[in-house]
């Protein structure tokens, strides 16, 4: 079962063996976090931030280990191809040193598993870890149970040329995995971090993932998440950034797997002139459900935020987007724009898009828009008159709809990986392979 008592028992059984268990501050956060989770329980529709995605079913949900060991090395090789970069691999919620290849790092860069960082420089981790109060109750569960994740810290002015890839492969023995990634980019540093979530098999499993990013003044951080969990996984995730003056942060969220995926993605502009790009793409079929819940906090003046979310919804699936934008009273000349466009590939699929604007300043530019549509009949006909059969034409148009989101990914190798992940989802992707 996945009810509160079960998780409380899980905490009592595991807390002593979690990394950093001996650190009082961490034990304290974990204890408070599990009690907060126990108090609040799973969010239901009554919760204002969860009214399109209830987790009430979790009280009756049984999670079970996949049982079969994944071929992690093969999965990694497929993903990695020729790509250099810094590769950290986690199997079943634990760092796997043998599969990982962190590679050479410039001076001033720290990159390791969270467990290792807790052993070697716990004070720095403490400052970045966050608290039991962050987010909603699933994030508290993560704070209580996170068994590992990545630690990346860049000193002032340090640039990582190659992307950091964090590969999270579901293991054979765990019914749940809880991952926490901490990223600290000091002033004027630059990096790209990619999180891959991979799973396979039929078992119902749970993944919770929290990534916290501190992007200091004039730093540039690109975060890309590729969620390709197994069909029966529940994926509850949070990406939480804080930006200093002039910092640029981009979040690309590609959500292709899992039975239910919830992504809370937020940033706060803590200095003037910040820029944020939130880009998302999801593909759903069957009865699957994905919810992107974003928050952009224009706490300081002259910030620019751009949000683009696109959904491909098939079967009886449901895609939800909520875009919350807060412009503080003194955050003059803020510029916020958000769009959510959904393509319905079946009559029963459903899309919800809802802006939530809270604007307290008067000199602001704020816009939002949402569309829900079907494959364009004129385009379909045009392609068919050129000899493409209907299936091929539909796939091509579906892909074409998604490609706008992929094109926003600047780095070509990452765009290619994202494309391949999408192709793997779309039936008949091999027909379109030449587009890669």
């Amino acid at each position, binding site marked *: 079962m996945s009810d509160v008592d079960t998780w409380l028992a899980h905490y009592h059984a595991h807390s002593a063996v979690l990394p950093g268990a001996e650190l009082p501050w961490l034990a304290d956060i974990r204890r408070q976090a599990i009690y907060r989770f126990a108090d609040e329980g799973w969010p239901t529709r009554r919760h204002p931030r969860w009214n399109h995605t209830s987790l009430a079913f979790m009280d009756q949900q049984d999670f079970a280990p996949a049982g079969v060991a994944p071929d992690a090395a093969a999965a990694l090789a497929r993903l990695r191809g020729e790509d250099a970069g810094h590769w950290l691999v986690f199997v079943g919620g634990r760092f796997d040193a043998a599969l990982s290849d962190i590679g050479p790092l410039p001076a001033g860069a720290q990159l390791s598993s969270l467990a290792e960082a807790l052993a070697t420089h716990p004070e720095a981790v403490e400052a970045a870890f966050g608290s039991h109060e962050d987010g909603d109750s699933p994030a508290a569960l993560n704070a209580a149970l996170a068994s590992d994740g990545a630690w990346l810290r860049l000193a002032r002015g340090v640039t990582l040329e190659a992307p950091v890839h964090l590969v999270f492969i579901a293991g054979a023995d765990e019914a749940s995995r809880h991952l926490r990634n901490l990223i600290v980019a000091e002033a004027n540093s630059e990096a790209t971090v990619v999180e891959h979530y991979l799973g396979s098999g039929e078992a119902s499993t749970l993944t919770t993932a929290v990534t916290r990013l501190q992007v200091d003044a004039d730093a540039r951080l690109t975060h890309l998440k590729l969620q390709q969990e197994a069909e029966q996984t529940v994926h509850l995730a949070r990406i939480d950034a804080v930006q200093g003056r002039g910092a640029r942060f981009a979040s690309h969220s590609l959500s292709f797997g899992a039975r239910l995926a919830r992504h809370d993605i937020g940033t706060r502009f803590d200095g003037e002139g910040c820029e944020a790009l939130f880009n998302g793409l999801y593909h759903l079929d069957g009865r699957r459900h994905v919810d992107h819940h974003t928050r952009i906090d224009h706490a300081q003046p002259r910030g620019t935020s751009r949000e683009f979310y696109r959904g491909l919804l098939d079967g009886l699936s449901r895609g939800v987007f909520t875009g919350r934008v807060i412009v503080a009273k003194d955050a003059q000349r803020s510029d916020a724009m958000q769009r959510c466009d959904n393509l319905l590939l079946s009559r029963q699929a459903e899309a919800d898009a809802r802006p939530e604007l809270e604007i307290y300043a008067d000199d602001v530019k704020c816009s939002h828009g949402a569309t829900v549509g079907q494959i*364009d*009949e*004129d*385009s379909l*006909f*045009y*392609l*068919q*008159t*050129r*000899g*493409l*059969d*209907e299936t*091929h034409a539909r796939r*091509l*148009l579906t*892909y*074409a*709809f*998604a*490609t*706008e989101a992929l094109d926003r990914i600047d780095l070509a190798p990452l765009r290619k990986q994202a494309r391949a992940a999408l192709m793997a989802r779309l039936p008949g992707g091999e027909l379109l392979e*030449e*587009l890669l």
Partner: protein
Amino acid sequence: MLDINNLQASVEGKSILKGLDLHVKAGEVHAIMGPNGSGKSTLAQVLAGRDAFEVTGGSVTWDEHDLLAMPIEERARAGLFLAFQYPVEIPGVSNAYFLKAAVNAVRKHRGLPEFDAMDFLTRVKAEMKAVGMKEEFLYRAVNEGFSGGEKKRNEVLQMALLEPRLAILDETDSGLDIDALKVVADGVNRLRSPERALIVITHYQRLLDYIVPDQVHVLSHGRIVRSGGRELALELEEKGYGWIGDSGEVHSAPEPAGGAQ
């Protein structure tokens, strides 16, 4: 090659083609002219298989086949090509991919080997040169942001690459300057052969200075109301379409001898 008998079609319950007859033999070029709204595009789209138009009567036989029973892509693969009056923009799909997918779909059907990337590029670049298109148009999305003239050149390019046996050009000449017009005419003339037939829908006789049709037809209110040689086009240019009555009946129809009111 193409026999259209008493074709009737409607859209949203409104009757548009009201008993149209047209017979085109292999090797011939037919021009169809007629006022706006007379049903020219409807005819073209029905022949290409657009299901928004409901065929309510009549028949179309193409080389012994019941054309109307064939799926859209089968018509295309068997060699029917429609150059659209309004080519569709497809963001996100590169023109190169689109052209290659189209050419290979048709080649496969004809039992020819599919082009690989290199062969295709060589072929497409040569044809692009012939229609005066810059190579960059290969890497742009299909028709997206193309000017009117560029879209029409892209249609002629597709026609040249697909080598249809029956090509229908729906006002491909409209809105073009004289250079672009010559490109269209040249595309048609290069395709002319004893095995092929072409139907050129045009609003102006101007195009027919460059494409000499075997027959000219006047379409009005969903029917062919006059057929003749190329001199009919000149006559239409001179007299306009005013001699065709509102309900489609021909008032003092100018007989070949003339005699318009």
